[in-house]
């Protein structure tokens, strides 16, 4: 066994920060504070990733989570009745079951970690891991990488479709109403209820283009 090195001390501090901040996320009254605590937890994990010789993943986690948690804080302010945490608040259901499930998950995973025969083949410090990753992403695993990219594109489209109220011709959840053929005229295309109106069949397909 080696002694307690500076890396070990840093790892212990970052682990403590990650776990404590993760727990405080669900214990604080302020939801904005909760999202920043989650950010703190992610930053601590990113620090551990840097210690684990994964510079690219670690830095990418820092950048991604900084932006993501700012968005989360904005959503908190938008949706929550108590974003500033001025009143004590505990909005939970099935609390005992949740605590039991969390503890059992931790104990079960810990038992699996402690009882299994873990591989021991650490990464060579001289290995160019970022270059390896780049060659892997744009080489043998390019299909995986591109599939992830397409998935993200589909996610962007799905998020906009789900979240947008105004469609091109009116509220997206009430059926489309195309604009009139002349300024201020009757809406072109098929009416939602009675099927009249000039323009007829082909105009109400415009929004598919």
């Amino acid at each position, binding site marked *: 066994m080696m002694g307690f090195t500076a890396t070990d001390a840093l790892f212990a501090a970052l682990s403590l920060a990650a776990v404590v901040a993760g727990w405080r996320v669900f214990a604080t009254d302020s*939801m904005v504070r909760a999202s920043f605590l989650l950010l703190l937890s992610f930053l601590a994990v990113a620090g551990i990733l840097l210690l*684990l010789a994964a510079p690219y993943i670690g830095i990418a986690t820092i950048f991604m989570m900084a932006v993501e948690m700012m968005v989360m804080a904005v959503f908190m302010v938008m949706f929550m009745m108590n974003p500033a945490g001025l009143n004590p608040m505990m909005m939970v259901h*099935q609390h005992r079951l949740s605590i039991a499930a969390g503890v059992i998950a931790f104990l079960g995973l810990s038992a699996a970690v402690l009882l299994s025969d873990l591989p021991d083949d650490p990464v060579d410090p001289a290995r160019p891991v970022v270059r390896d990753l780049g060659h*892997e992403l744009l080489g043998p*695993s390019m299909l995986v990488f591109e599939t992830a990219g397409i998935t*993200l594109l589909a996610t962007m489209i799905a998020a906009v479709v789900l979240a947008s109220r105004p469609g091109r011709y009116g509220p997206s959840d009430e059926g489309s109403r195309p604009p009139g053929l002349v300024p201020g005229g009757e809406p072109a295309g098929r009416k939602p209820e009675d099927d009249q109106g000039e323009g007829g069949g082909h105009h109400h397909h415009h929004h598919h283009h």
Partner: protein
Amino acid sequence: MTLTSVLLVAAALVGIGLYGALSQQSFVMLMMGLELMLNGALLAVIGLWSFGLAGAPEGQLLAILVMAVMAVEMAVGFALVVAVYRKRQADTTESLGTLKQ
């Protein structure tokens, strides 16, 4: 810092995240629990890559996929929160009962 200690921290993050995802009533807090579980998964993946694979690049690739899953979960989750709020003025799980039947 050993593989065992890294995996134990990851297990703690997954446990806390599971607690949050099951217990929180607010959709956004529930998503924080999911994120915390993915955080643990990311740590476990990189821990195994760093200590057990001699730096095989596929381990880092798996971590990139975990991060893509995080982004997808976050974007679609927030879009669903917005859509549900717009339709039903609901921002907690208790306000939705239509799937119960």
